[in-house]
């Protein structure tokens, strides 16, 4: 089932076109890795899909309905956006912060319901942060903070999660933890789009990769296809070692190469 479809989407930031005629589909139950060089527009695409940026052209549909026709609260119930970084401005407790994820679901006139509390509790346990639920959200290590923010997104029980570099700055153990949580969410039927730079990790955990280059999706499909030597040379300008271990692709960047003909033509 298609959860989200981007159809010939064009987005500009100021006067600069960032995305031009981009197409992408996200299905229920899959983890899609959004990769591409710095400045390719990965965050812009994610923000456009979250309804945070106006489109110059094209259309983004969530569950068949155009994004701009869906009211804010309904959209917030379907979709969670996990921005890059994301500091808490106030020293609220971790539990209070995770409870923010329930805001779209909550009764406007009452405190949190039993359902809200149960969802928060589940998210706290799933992200392994229940033991410091009372700690101020401003006093967390990078790994803890990432898990807290992920728990906030999970607490809303989203059908679609858009995560912008959720594993940036994490040690390998926490990277595996976070990616495993995203897989669990997809396993439960949600669609997940995750922006990342670690190609091996992307190949290991994503069903599908979409490589953003030159304002559109330059390659899309299984990790083996997208991470081919010619595509890496063309889009990233690198030569990489390709191997495998326990059935997982391993991609280790080795050296810069001259951008291929695809890049020169732009």
């Amino acid at each position, binding site marked *: 089932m298609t959860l989200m479809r981007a159809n010939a989407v064009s987005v500009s930031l100021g006067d600069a076109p960032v995305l031009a005629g981009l197409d992408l589909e996200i299905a229920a139950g899959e983890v899609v890795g959004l990769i591409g060089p710095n400045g390719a527009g990965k965050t812009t695409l994610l923000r456009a899909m979250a*309804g945070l940026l106006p489109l110059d052209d094209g259309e983004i549909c969530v569950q068949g309905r155009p994004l701009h026709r869906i009211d804010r609260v309904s959209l917030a119930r379907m979709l969670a956006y996990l921005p890059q970084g994301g500091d808490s401005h*106030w020293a609220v407790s971790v539990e209070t912060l995770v409870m923010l994820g329930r805001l779209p679901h909550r009764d406007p006139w009452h405190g949190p319901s039993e359902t809200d509390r149960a969802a*928060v509790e589940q998210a706290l346990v799933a992200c392994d942060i229940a033991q410091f639920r009372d700690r101020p959200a401003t006093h967390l290590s990078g790994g803890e903070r990432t898990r807290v923010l992920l728990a906030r997104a999970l607490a809303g029980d989203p059908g679609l999660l858009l995560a912008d570099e959720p594993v940036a700055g994490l040690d390998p153990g926490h990277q595996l933890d976070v990616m495993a949580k995203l897989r669990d969410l997809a396993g439960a039927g949600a669609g997940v789009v995750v922006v990342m730079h670690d190609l091996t990790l992307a190949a290991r955990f994503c069903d599908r990769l979409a490589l953003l280059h030159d304002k559109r999706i330059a390659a899309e499909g299984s990790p083996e296809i997208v991470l081919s030597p010619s595509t890496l040379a063309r889009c990233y300008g690198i030569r990489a070692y390709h191997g495998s271990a326990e059935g997982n692709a391993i991609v280790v960047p080795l050296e810069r190469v001259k951008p291929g003909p695809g890049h020169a033509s732009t």
Partner: protein
Amino acid sequence: MVSAAASGTGKRAGERAVLATLAVAVVLAFAASLLVGPAAIGLPEMLHAIFSGQADIAALIIREVRLPRAILGLMIGATLGLSGAALQGFLRNPLAEPGLVGVSASASLGAVLTFYTGLSGLFALALPLGGMAGACIGVVIVQSLAGRDSSPLTLILAGIAVTSFAGALTSLTLNLAPNPFAALEIMFWLMGSLADRSFEHVWLSAPFMIAGSLLLATLGRPLDALTLGEDAAHTLGFNLRALRHRLVFGTALCVGAGVAVTGAIGFVGLIVPHILRPVVGHRPSALLPASALGGAVLTLAADVAVRLLSPGRELKLGVLTALVGAPFFLYLVLRLRKQLL
């Protein structure tokens, strides 16, 4: 599950206890405001004067002098605390205060112009009406300067621009004052005071303050959502542009009406939310009612203090809040600096 529910309930109970304590403090400060003054009136006489409807001297003093003064102190303190908490939540800056959006300065200018033109001498309500007109014009300019986007930065810049310009025009008015007495009268009024206010002032400002407070009181959830920044709040289903409009108009109604009847009373809106934030677990929504109560306590207490400190020649309330508030502001800066290191 059980422990989570218990800790959640515990937090709610803690917040209720804070609000109940503050409410008791408001009642005590309000009673003190009725009891303290040049004429010695005891508690039984005070209660008798309010509820009996008799017309002896004590009853007149309580009903015509001290009651409107206490009610104004309560309303102005509460709205200053509330709008300060809302602004700090929206701008996500603990140093924000109601004066920041330019309303205080433009209300002052409007009131000062009624002095200068002599309108305030013609009829008593010209002064507060001028203040409100100034506040309205100020807020329209700030809103149009800040533009259609919801960024806090443009709001701050627009507020600073309007505040500086209104301040310059106020100085110009003082400069061109027809005589030193007029200038002195303006200066005294600008300092902010609750003395010699009547029920006319209460009736004039109350509708605006109540409307403004209702606007601000509904902002709890969007302000909570802003804890994680604008993108997060937006994707949690909140319209930030509507939030900014409600915030600016709510603050303008509250502060504009307040400045119009009492002059500028600074620092209450800055200090109160700051002191109470840790007490309510730093949640912006919980801080709104707490700051309203806290602002009322501080303003009523400060107004009692000015009567006690210098009974003959009363200190202006705005002078006292600034004398206490400015060092506190310095302390805040020092503490923030330490946190940043």
